[in-house]
């Protein structure tokens, strides 16, 4: 599902809010990009008009509300630090929507959305497109401080099962344990898994789903220069089955069937 109509727009910031420790919800006005965006797609943001940082930063689209693209991001380095200082009314350059996006299955399925950390961002957008009651949303964090209060984001909000590694909120443990428990023990008909998060988590989700024969789409990250498929910078190794040595996250992805990726090399 490669979409056309990519735009580079100098957009006004609608809102910027710290929703958890170092985690920000950013609203950017762009009817054009918002109108085309599909769950799983991302944008490349120029955090300021300067030679440093030089490259744009990729962020998943977390939702679209009234012509506003919503991003959910964590401050991890200089780029996100600068971005978090951008105020409503200021303008930033946004390139998108980029990438393929998730493919929702037809027919009634039991859909598991499994997000680790900021990996919940594209899944929240996806959740909004699924009929209520058909999806289970599982989110995992290190600790409660980093846990995003999903209900307060102003986005269509699924019911959430939470896991924290230190047990400070929700179930103690990894979100993959949550998933494994549900998926192995319950008698679930036609489950489908969508996952996004850190590589070790995705590796675990993938192997679980591959083992159980459950369809699974994961969204990957890679360092990017262009986001457009032009530079070939964002390579990830393809599995033997995929028939490809490398995929490019920005164009072939960021969403891949779990079986396409050579997890051992990632």
């Amino acid at each position, binding site marked *: 599902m490669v979409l056309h109509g990519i735009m*580079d727009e100098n957009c006004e910031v609608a809102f910027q809010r710290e929703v958890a420790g170092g985690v920000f919800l950013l609203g950017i006005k762009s009817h054009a990009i918002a109108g085309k965006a599909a769950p799983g797609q991302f944008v490349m943001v120029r955090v300021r008009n300067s030679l*440093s940082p030089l*490259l744009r930063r990729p962020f998943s689209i977390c939702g679209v509300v009234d012509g506003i693209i919503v991003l959910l991001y964590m401050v991890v380095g200089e780029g996100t630090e600068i971005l978090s200082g951008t105020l409503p009314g200021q303008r930033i350059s946004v390139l998108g929507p980029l990438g393929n996006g998730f493919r929702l299955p037809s027919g009634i399925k039991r859909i598991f959305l499994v997000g680790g950390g900021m990996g919940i961002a594209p899944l929240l957008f996806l959740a909004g497109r699924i009929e209520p009651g058909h999806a289970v949303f599982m989110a995992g964090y290190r600790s409660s401080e980093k846990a995003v209060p999903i209900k307060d984001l102003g986005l269509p909000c699924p019911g959430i099962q939470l896991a924290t590694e230190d047990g400070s909120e929700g179930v103690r443990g990894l979100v993959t344990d949550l998933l494994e428990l549900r998926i192995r023990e319950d008698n679930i008909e036609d489950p489908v898994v969508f996952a996004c998060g850190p590589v070790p988590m995705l590796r675990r989700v993938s192997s679980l789903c591959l083992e159980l024969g459950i369809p699974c789409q994961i969204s990957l990250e890679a360092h990017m220069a262009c986001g*457009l498929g032009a*530079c*070939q*910078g964002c*390579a990830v190794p393809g599995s033997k089955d995929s028939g490809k040595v490398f995929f490019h996250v920005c164009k072939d992805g960021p969403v891949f069937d779990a079986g396409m990726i050579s997890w051992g090399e990632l």
Partner: protein
Amino acid sequence: MNAPDLSVELGGLFLKNPVIAASGTFGYGEEFSPLIDINRLGGLVVKGISLKPRAGNSPPRVVETPCGMLNAIGLANIGLDAFIKDKLPKLLKLSTAIIVNIYGHSLPEYGELAGSLKGIPGIAALEVNISCPNVDCGGMAFGTDPDMSARVTDAVAAKADRPVIVKLSPNVTDIRVIARAVEKAGADAISLINTLTGMAVDIEKRAPVLGNVSGGLSGPAIKPVALHMVYQVARSVRIPVIGMGGIMNYRDALEFIMAGASAVQIGTANFVNPGATIDIIEGLYGYCREKRIGRLVDLVGSISLPGRGKKDLMV
């Protein structure tokens, strides 16, 4: 005043304006077509093509550095046959000069590439990459030795039926020596610079960031080095010079043109601003209009050098 004339001629290659998208940063053109009108470009150099397809290096392949980036793509490309079959037909529908960037692992491979592209109507020129630092066999070795550079140039020029641009590596002691060698061997134009070899270390992982350990540095960080080499080469050869390295806007482009470049290529800037090439064309146009410069070519190499002044005086 009449509209300024931005057109240039580069050793038989005619461009409507001097702004060219650089190899490896513009894909096969189509990637940017949702964003800009590619027909407005002076030209477009495609990603480097080899005889056989190549998957490229292990990731990570790109990393940001201060005002620059390192890439170790490893010359990933679809190979000559797929290029001619799948990419070229679309490219040749464009009304901009299509320049095919080629590289080989041996002299015969360079010759074979040039031979295979012979006779295909619409290809405006060949750009010969003797300078990519990412492939351990070939690449580097050719471009850093004047003799090998000349032999590659000769191998391509002997087979080519259109202008041959040789693209130089900056990772050399004296780039003028290489420039004169490829001029003598039959190059119609010279383009420079390719990337400077560099590296980044991930101090958390205590490992190189790039899967390939080292990579090529591009972007504004290298502009001063590129500009100096363009200046040096332009004063050392009679064939036209195409300058590149960190050009982000029309003012940067003018620096290269005034230092001696007849045309410029835009690489990394396309990632930061996909409209960079168009903005630069418009900027050059506006500059010429404002300064009442009828033909942009009159600016080429137009800097005046300072007198000796007090340079190197003893106290």
